[in-house]
């Protein structure tokens, strides 16, 4: 049996079935959560490329599935990525019953994770662009609300993401040409520009980042949180695939300089806009823009000379996932108690939803890299690495980070302000409190004891063996 059947076809098929069963929301949530947990567990435990026995039956686990001349390969090196993908799916599906982002969310989220898995496993890996595009289209139904006009954010999201596909596919063809004639500088330049534009569209790098805050303002916070966590992560994996595959790309210092330049630029833009935000949804959006910038900066650190940069990149997945998850859930709970997410609507929310407000603030500060929280250890490693290369880049990236911190402080001030005679009370349900408290605890534990968690990501760079010296 092929591994693709387990981690691509089965969840994809299940997503289709669950879509038909969406009326039974609780059952769908439970089934999807259990399945995703099971798949994460299998990714952790199941031996690949070995025989194993179930009673009288013998199963050969092969890592390749061929279809129409192309292959989907999920080998031992992909196991950490599979664990992360399906654990993410389990957590987001599990809390969906609480957040209620719409009936189609859980089935489609599972389908998107299956497509993302297909994207990281397809060979030639270039076709991942098409699979990512299909998963982007699949996310649209849970990002728009019934009975309301379609916002500009969703249209810009579809447009900019779809425009990335032609650039990536065409650059892939040109890159093959570069391999055949590595001395052709004109071809190298053209391929680099096309590739850069493709990833700028896909990863929402400045100036193509505008859909993120717009969509974060329009869409359900929990739904957009899921998309903003999964999409940049999968696309970054895809981008690392390019670096791993093409030697001229990974050995060129220009590649890393450009990654650093646009990474820092994206951090600065996201941070400065976050500092002046008055909408909590948009604030979440700009924090993701900052995170995307930091991811690019992390990848740029190594300059192809050591694997430390990749470790920083992979280690950042945990605090980002935790931070965004807690933030999105807290934002959803606050939105359910207020008219909207503008500052004027959420004034004093901390007095009647203190757990949600605390979770929101801690998640924000964690993403901003405040000490004692989950984001800090990884951010510290990033600062150290960046300082060894360019102090100017550190200055600008710090400026962006400070912008994000200012945004957090302004949010804190708004959430706690209110009439002095208003009493503090707990209005969140016990389930909401339980989820949020677990999230807050995780943010603190990962921040205080990173040595317990970060080694789990140490093996992930193995999937890109050419990038490890």
């Amino acid at each position: 049996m092929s591994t693709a059947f387990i981690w691509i076809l089965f969840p994809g098929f299940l997503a289709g079935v669950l879509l038909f069963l969406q009326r039974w929301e609780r059952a769908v949530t439970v089934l999807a959560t259990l399945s995703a947990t099971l798949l994460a567990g299998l990714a952790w435990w199941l031996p690949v490329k070995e025989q194993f026995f179930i009673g009288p039956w013998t199963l050969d686990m092969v890592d390749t599935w061929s279809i129409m001349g192309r292959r989907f390969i999920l080998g031992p090196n992909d196991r950490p990525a599979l664990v992360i993908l399906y654990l993410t799916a389990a957590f987001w599906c599990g809390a969906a019953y609480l957040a209620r982002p719409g009936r189609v969310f859980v089935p489609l989220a599972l389908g998107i994770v299956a497509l993302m898995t297909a994207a990281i496993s397809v060979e030639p890996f270039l076709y991942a662009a098409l699979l990512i595009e299909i998963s982007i289209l699949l996310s649209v139904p849970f990002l728009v609300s019934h009975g309301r006009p379609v916002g500009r954010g969703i249209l810009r999201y579809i447009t900019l993401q779809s425009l990335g596909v032609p650039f990536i596919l065409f650059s892939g063809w040109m890159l093959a040409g570069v391999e055949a004639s590595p001395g052709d500088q004109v071809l190298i330049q053209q391929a680099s520009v096309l590739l850069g534009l493709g990833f700028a569209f896909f990863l929402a790098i400045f100036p193509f980042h505008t859909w993120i805050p717009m969509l974060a303002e329009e869409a359900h916070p929990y739904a957009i949180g899921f998309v903003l966590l999964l999409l940049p992560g999968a696309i970054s994996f895809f981008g690392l695939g390019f670096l791993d595959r093409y030697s001229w790309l990974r050995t060129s210092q220009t590649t890393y300089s450009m990654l650093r330049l646009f990474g820092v630029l994206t951090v600065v833009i996201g941070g400065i806009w976050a500092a002046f935000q008055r909408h909590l949804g948009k604030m979440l959006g700009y924090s993701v823009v900052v995170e995307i910038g930091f991811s690019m900066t992390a990848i740029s650190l190594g300059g192809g000379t050591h694997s430390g940069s990749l470790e920083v990149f992979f280690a950042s997945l945990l605090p980002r996932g935790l931070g965004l998850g807690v933030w999105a859930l807290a934002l959803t709970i606050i939105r359910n108690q207020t008219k909207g997410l503008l500052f004027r609507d959420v004034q004093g929310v901390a007095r009647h939803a203190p757990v949600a407000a605390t979770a929101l603030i801690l998640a924000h500060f964690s993403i901003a890299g405040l000490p004692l929280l989950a984001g800090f250890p990884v951010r510290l490693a990033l600062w150290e690495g960046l300082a060894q290369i360019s102090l100017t880049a550190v200055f600008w990236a710090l400026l962006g980070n400070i912008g994000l911190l200012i945004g957090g402080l302004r949010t804190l001030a708004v959430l706690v302000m209110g009439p002095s005679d208003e009493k503090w009370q707990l209005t969140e349900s016990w389930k909401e409190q339980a989820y949020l408290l677990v999230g807050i605890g995780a943010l603190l534990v990962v921040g205080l004891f990173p040595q317990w968690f970060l080694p789990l990501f140490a093996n992930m760079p193995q999937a890109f063996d050419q990038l490890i010296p």
Partner: protein
Amino acid sequence: MMFDQLAFFAVVLISMTSLVLLIGQDWRVSISALALQYLGVFELVGLSWSLELAAVKLVAGWMAGAVLGMALLGIPDEARKGERLVLGSVLFRLLTAGLVWLVAFSIAPQLSARIPGIKYEQVLGGIILIGMGLLQLGLTALPLRITIGLLTVLSGFEILYAVVETSTLVSGLLAGVSLGLALVGAYLLTIPTMEEIE
């Protein structure tokens, strides 16, 4: 052979249909133009692909048009009304379309020299569609127009990409993306008219 003889007419056809898509205000005209445009795309893709594989583009494109048409039929008249273009707006669009054609004619020879095996008509058709699609995307914020713009850009790209890639899986995935875009467009057209769900 047949494809070679009709290539020039295909370029003329997609130039006209993309212009109609840019300035047309009636949705029936737009959907018909989109269907005709896919006929031109089929013809230009057929210069590089086998008839059966090229037909995938035609079928997927027509299905995309049908999906959008069905969605438009199912919504109230008020929701179907698009933007009303004044004479100045139409003239502006005609002028910018002219610029796109000019650019296409200017860069087509260089591009055809850089892509081995590509025919001049394919380059011209591809660039015209990409340019007109981008123009459409830049001039509107309506779901139907955005969807048509994206389908147009993607069609142009598919003509160029067909020369360098003949994989069945890619053909299927690109058809899937076209259909997916149409389905998403149809969803966005109908969702404002659906009842709000708590």
